[in-house]
């Protein structure tokens, strides 16, 4: 795998295909959910092939259930491998979450307690994925709404351990950090200070919704709105520390017209450019 460029990218939505083909926007990459392209043929593959010819591609899985208890589905791994062989994406990523238990697929990224048992399990699963797919994968931090009494390992330490033991990279979803920290009444800056940024190879930015609980706000990772201002601020702080990284705008629900998404990508690109120019200036000085 070659790398994704350290530029802003967008999640691809089929309803934007005509706009993208007509305007060929200057974007670092497109990201697609792998599971939407596991059919045999037809329009999804025709669109993805055309997109892939023009742009770097990030393949983002949502169904592997790496945090599950019953082992990875070999059939699903085989489907992912076939997609990787066909489209040669620059990146493959999945989630620190589970979505299957038994034969059911629950279509959500569900949280897991962080314990020595689950750490060993997740490392084993990441090893299997990297072995089966023949690529280094990225693992994404989740957004969460509850805590677990049995958790004994902080999330940042858990992710660091998985990256160290398996050699995988991390996908830092800054919106997920904000959502989780607000929900658990902790400080997102403290979380990011503890995050193993050296392993991060991609950033996700998305919108969230807000509800109100007696104790304060409950944020829902809705992927259905603009990136919130506090998330942009955290993103700029992360990029100032890491330097430019591939940065994705996610918008999966209530998908707006393409120019709205493009404006979000431009905002991320401006932050990347400012940091990149700062780095070059420092190098010259």
């Amino acid at each position, binding site marked *: 795998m070659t790398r994704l460029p350290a530029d802003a990218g967008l999640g691809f939505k089929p309803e934007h295909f005509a706009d993208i083909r007509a305007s060929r926007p200057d974007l670092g990459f497109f990201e697609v959910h792998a*599971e*939407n392209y*596991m*059919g*045999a*043929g*037809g*329009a*999804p*593959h*025709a669109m993805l092939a055309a997109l892939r010819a023009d742009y770097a591609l990030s393949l983002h899985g*949502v*169904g*592997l259930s790496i945090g*599950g*208890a*019953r082992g990875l*589905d070999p*059939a*699903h791994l085989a*489907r992912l491998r076939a997609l990787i062989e066909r489209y040669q994406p620059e990146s493959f990523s999945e989630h620190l979450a*589970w*979505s*299957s*238990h*038994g*034969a*059911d*697929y*629950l*279509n*959500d990224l*569900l*949280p*897991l*307690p962080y*314990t020595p*048992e*689950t750490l060993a*399990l997740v490392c084993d699963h990441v090893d299997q994925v990297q072995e089966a797919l023949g690529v280094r994968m990225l693992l994404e931090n989740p957004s969460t*709404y*509850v*805590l*677990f*009494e*049995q958790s004994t390992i902080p999330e940042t330490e858990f992710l660091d351990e998985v990256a160290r033991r398996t050699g995988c990279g991390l996908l830092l979803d800054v919106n997920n950090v904000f959502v989780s920290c607000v*929900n*658990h*009444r902790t400080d997102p800056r403290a979380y990011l200070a503890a995050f193993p940024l050296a392993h991060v190879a991609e950033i996700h930015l998305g919108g969230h919704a807000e509800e109100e*609980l*007696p*104790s304060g706000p*409950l944020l*829902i990772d809705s992927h259905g709105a603009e990136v919130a201002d506090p998330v942009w601020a955290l993103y700029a702080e992360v990029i100032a520390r890491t330097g430019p990284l591939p940065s994705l705008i996610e918008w999966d629900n209530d998908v707006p017209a393409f120019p709205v998404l493009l404006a979000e990508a431009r905002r991320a690109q401006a932050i990347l450019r400012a940091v990149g120019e700062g780095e070059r200036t420092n190098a010259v000085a």
Partner: protein
Amino acid sequence: MPSHETFLSAFRSGIFGAGLPVGVTARNPDEAERRFAVYRNNVLHSLTEALAARFPVVARLVGAEFFAAMARVFAEAHPPESPMLFDWGGAFPGFLEEFPPVAGLPYLPDVARLERARGRAYHAADAEPLPPAALAEAAGRADRIALGLHPSVALITSGHAIHAIWAGNQPGVTPGPISDRPETVLVLRDRTLEVPVWRLGPGEAAFCAALLARRPLLAAAEAALTTDPQFAPQELLARLQRAGALISIEEDAQ
């Protein structure tokens, strides 16, 4: 401390209505139940949305609120068996046949079959259409050849006016009165990768059924003409050809 296996079993049960799994908490533990409900809602809402995306006409016919309630019952009884959600819903037409609250809409299961066929056609394997000359060249062997149809092609025979119901309930269309009658439709993915639904006359339906059964072309035409003396096989063949639905010629058909 429960094992991960035990814990996920409890979490899964909790999503489908059992109590809060042991160990689930929050900074303010009184809120754990309310927060856990976010997962319950995410799973059921996302599955409802996924089902509505695959069966939009069924959803329109029963209304969004009713559909959401029905989708939750279906999702619990027939949850997706893989992360390929586009393939979920094969059991939905049969579920509708057995679901008492929709017994008054006897056409609903067949409308769902039509929508299921469209979903499958959209994702079906690609296949190169026959060049136009190939069919003309083979016409002299019509008694011995069968035509291979595109993997997307499906024939749905119903005792109800499924085409009229489907077409009258598309986005932006105001449904008018529909007189119920038996209808047969052909679902296919055309050269533009769209998935049209063709209403077939009795002869056309008989012809397509024979083609799908790999009957020799001549025998298929004869069967169709027996059903409908007005049937014009050349017209339908030309239409199938234009759509890209004819993909191979098989010799020595029986």
